């Protein structure tokens, strides 16, 4: 039969997939939360205090606040990526969780939507954790609009969750994810303005960075930390949203090809 070329739209029932993951997470919530503190705390302490001694400020902000705004987005990216890669791959293959779901009224788009929403939820959880840590370190300027950064964390979680699930649907094994990190996630982490302004980079690299989603997350959060509105707001929202929608559609097609054969 001819494949249908309609856009995949998830059903509200995909909440059940999200709830399944939440229920499992709650069983191991405490160790998972403690694990969340570790890495961002190291970046803030190691780089913020260490480098902060030499860098008095960046873009008219204390360096610790500058760093915290970038690390917030990077943490969302990393958390959503790990969940959408390793954890989702285990559910797709070894545990056949998706196989069980697809024998119910749930459709492939519902499973993908539930998984992506869960990736974003975990990104939000680690974002809030980081907020608490960074706030305690005095890295969050209360004068700004710091809480407005949390929806951006959610957007980063959705975008990188969808991209990770897409990679998972194409992955032949866990080893595949290392390529994704080396070729994509780690360079984005280093060059997207998390640690220093992007305009210090050569022009061709700047062009590449601007075409990728993490840069726009950072550009959204940083002004909010100093109480300003991001500019141009529409562009910084649209680029991650395009990645999100594109990755979701492709992931749905690829997962269908992988599981329903």
């Amino acid at each position, binding site marked *: 039969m001819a494949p249908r070329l309609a856009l995949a739209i998830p059903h509200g029932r995909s909440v*059940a*997939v999200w709830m*399944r993951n939440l229920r499992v997470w709650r069983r191991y919530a405490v160790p998972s939360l403690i694990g969340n503190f570790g890495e961002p705390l190291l970046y803030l302490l190691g780089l913020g205090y260490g480098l902060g001694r030499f860098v008095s400020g960046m873009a008219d902000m204390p360096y610790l606040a500058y760093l915290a705004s970038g690390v917030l987005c990077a943490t969302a990216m990393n958390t959503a990526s790990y969940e959408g890669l390793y954890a989702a791959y285990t559910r797709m293959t070894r545990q*056949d*969780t998706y196989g069980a779901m697809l*024998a119910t*009224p749930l459709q492939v788009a519902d499973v993908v939507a539930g998984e992506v929403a869960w990736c974003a939820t975990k990104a939000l959880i680690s974002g809030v954790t980081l907020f608490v840590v960074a706030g305690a370190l005095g890295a969050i300027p209360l004068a700004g609009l710091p809480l407005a950064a949390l929806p951006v964390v959610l957007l980063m979680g959705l975008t990188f969750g969808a991209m990770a699930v897409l990679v998972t649907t194409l992955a032949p094994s866990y080893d595949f994810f290392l390529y994704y990190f080396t070729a994509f996630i780690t360079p984005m982490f280093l060059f997207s303005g998390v640690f220093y302004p992007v305009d210090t980079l050569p022009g061709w690299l700047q062009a590449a960075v601007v075409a990728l989603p993490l840069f726009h997350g950072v550009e959204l959060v940083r002004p909010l930390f100093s109480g300003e509105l991001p500019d141009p707001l529409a562009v910084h929202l649209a680029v991650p949203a395009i990645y999100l929608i594109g990755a979701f559609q492709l992931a749905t097609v690829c997962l269908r090809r992988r599981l*329903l054969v």
Partner: protein
Amino acid sequence: MHGRGLTKHYGGVPVVDGVDLELRAGECFGLLGPNGAGKSTLIRLILGLAPRDDGELEVLGRSVPDAIRAIRARCGVVPQQDNLDIDLTAAANLRVYARYFGLGGPAVEARIDRLLAFFQLADRRGAEIEALSGGMKRRLILARALINDPELLVLDEPTTGLDPQARRLVWQQLRRLRREGRTLLLTTHYMSEAARLCDRLAVMDGGRLLALGTPEELLRWYVEPYVVEVPLDGEDFQPLSQAPGCRLRVTGDTAYLYTDDPGPLVDRVRTAGFDPPYWRPANLEDVFLGLTGYELRED
């Protein structure tokens, strides 16, 4: 359920090859066949879990895949491979699965209690999946398949790998489900299971249905009433091929002589110098071997 010309190819090879199949409401239908016959693939086509290459299909009066969401809401599925959620306890597996159907609340909790009791798992409700035996897992999957009170229950080898006690328990529950008026479609390669449970059977091989009927009809149509089994012990079976009034089949170290009248044949085999033969009424296994061949399958 009503399918015509159902066809599925893998790598250019037809795995389900123009199958016509109709299930009657409230019957238990058995699909028999050697490994690789295409039983699981046919079931996946019926459930819309694999797109078919050709054919027409209606399940519960709705067409697949257009109405698949509505159809699945009224189906229960037991897959060939266990796929319980190992991150959840036994009862949580049922609770979360019910959510996939949009079901929750006190009615579902009461149903979970009833299903766990029905499958003798009440004392395991808080158990981790990895702590359950193979038989308990299979029963929990059956319980899971019933969480939405399905009209059609599709079971792919529900008892494979179970010990005889566990298998009998599952049979008893399946018979009870049939008495409740549910339609059952199951695959198996245990002939005794098919004979005990099924109102009608189809023997499948190479993606085609080779025979379809009630167990009695299959016995009547495809095999003589009696079989004389002769252990061969490496001896030449040629002398047996001249025996009158019988049909000879040889597999491994045994010759099977199918006949209407075993008495004279037994005497003849004994006087021909073979080890003492033994005779029995023909059963579904003989029908199965007759239709699908006596050679060993590697798959």
